[in-house]
């Protein structure tokens, strides 16, 4: 039950839901993906056609018309205030929420048919559809909030949802810790994680050849946005490289334009959006993956790097990244620019090698798709047993 769904949709929560839907359908569950027609939350409410289509793995995709206001003024104003660190009162918070992409037909459908589903999994917490789903079918709704400590999480519009939903699945323990502190009356919850696809093989040399990259590099993979720490990463890397010139480069992969200042251009290689295969190969070719985001609820890219046997250097401001690094023993965190620079110098040293295969072992133990699906099925049996459900 995401707000948006489709091949062009890029987002961690949408990815987790898609894989969950496909995985459960492959295990024989009847799965409906209920969503709107928007491609993104900036506008474009009518990108997809409403209707029903069959998905490749056996799930059914049901799209309802999405609507937005003309001006989006309450949304824009609310976002500006949140960015400034100003609080929104209850009225302003609900105006902000209801100025999101709305899907009234989906709400009506759940009012009529919500009780016919064993569970309605809604994600991520931020969007109107998730709040509305919980209001329409609270006793069937399981939240997959993909939550982290950010100004929107403080808004009162989510209080009822986290209290009234039947349950809540978290991706990591730090995410659950944050939710327990934020909502002391948090509904029943558990940490399920997210399943990660395990590539059959890697071709690091092929990636280097296809993109003309010779020397050692560290990789950034994801959205090139300030909220993900991208700007600061480029700035810190370029400053360090200018101060101590060396062969190490920063390769940045992801959709959309990459804001790279001219001063950083000699040290940064933009390879744009990569195919699944190229992404796997890039992970294997990299000296390390850098995860600069201070706001992560899971960090799939860290898992992909570890599966490829690649070390991870992450922003320690993210409790989730720190937690993964500590548990896996296959990553390190930095607190500031000086520590980041120290790690870059270490990675540039040909004598340095990653500790061992601990990262890959960690992902195979905790986050393969079958492992996560087993946890999900066990929780469905426990929280929403089959009696009385069609």
């Amino acid at each position: 039950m995401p707000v948006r769904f489709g091949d062009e949709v890029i987002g961690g929560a949408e990815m987790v839901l898609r894989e969950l839907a496909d995985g459960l359908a492959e295990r024989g569950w009847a799965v409906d993906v209920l969503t709107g027609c928007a491609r993104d939350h900036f506008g474009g409410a009518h990108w997809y056609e409403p209707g029903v289509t069959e998905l490749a793995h056996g799930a059914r995709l049901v799209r309802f018309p999405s609507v937005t206001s003309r001006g989006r003024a309450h949304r824009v104003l609310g976002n500006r205030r949140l960015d400034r660190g100003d609080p929104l009162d209850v009225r302003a918070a609900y105006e902000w929420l209801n100025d999101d992409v709305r899907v009234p037909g989906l709400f009506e459908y759940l009012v009529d048919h919500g009780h016919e589903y064993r569970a309605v999994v809604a994600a991520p917490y931020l969007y109107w559809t998730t709040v509305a789903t919980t209001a329409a079918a609270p006793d069937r709704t399981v939240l997959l909030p993909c939550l982290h400590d950010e100004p929107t999480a403080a808004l009162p519009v989510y209080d009822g949802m986290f209290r009234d939903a039947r349950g809540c699945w978290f991706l990591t323990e730090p995410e659950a810790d944050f939710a327990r502190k934020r909502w002391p009356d948090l509904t029943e919850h558990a940490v399920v994680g997210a399943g990660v696809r395990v590539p059959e093989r890697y071709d690091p040399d092929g990636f280097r050849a296809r993109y003309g990259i010779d020397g050692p590099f560290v990789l950034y993979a994801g959205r090139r946005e300030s909220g993900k720490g991208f700007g600061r990463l480029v700035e810190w890397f370029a400053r360090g490289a200018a101060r101590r010139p060396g062969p190490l480069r920063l390769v940045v992969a992801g959709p959309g334009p990459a804001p790279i200042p001219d001063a950083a251009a000699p040290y940064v290689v933009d390879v744009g959006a990569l195919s699944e295969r190229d992404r796997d190969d890039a992970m294997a070719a990299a000296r390390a993956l850098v995860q600069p985001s201070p706001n992560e609820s899971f960090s799939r890219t860290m898992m992909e790097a570890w599966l490829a046997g690649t070390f991870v250097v992450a922003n320690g401001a993210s409790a989730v990244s720190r937690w993964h690094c500590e548990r896996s023993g296959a990553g390190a965190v930095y607190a500031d620019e000086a520590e980041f620079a120290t790690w870059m110098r270490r990675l540039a040293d040909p004598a340095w090698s990653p500790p061992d295969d601990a990262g890959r072992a960690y992902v195979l133990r905790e986050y393969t798709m079958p492992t996560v699906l087993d946890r999900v099925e066990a929780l469905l049996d426990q929280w929403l047993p089959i009696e009385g459900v069609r």
Partner: protein
Amino acid sequence: MSRAIVVGPYPPTADPAGAVTLAEVRALRAEGLDVLVISPEPSAARVDACPQTRHGARRIARLVRGADVVVWVGPEPPAAVARALRDVADVRVHAASPRPRPSPGIAERLELLRAGAPTFVRSLRRR
């Protein structure tokens, strides 16, 4: 199929009356009625129209004409709506106090204007 109009606060809303409206909608839809929900502000309802404004009241009055059932959740309907309700056979009223809704001050209006609110362009020009 019988047509029902339900007017009232609707989720997602901070207004506790939203739960009353939703319960009415559930019951009417379970009975098989064709239900249109009108909420005073944008919500999960298909239509938003504020009964306290002249434009909103007229719109609600237009929509309730010809309905078989009208459920009204909130303070007493304004005159324009009350007139239209006289022709509806089954009118159910759940009296609820309106939530105090302070109108935005000049500073907030200007901020909304800058954020792209077309309605405030009109209201400021009228003054």
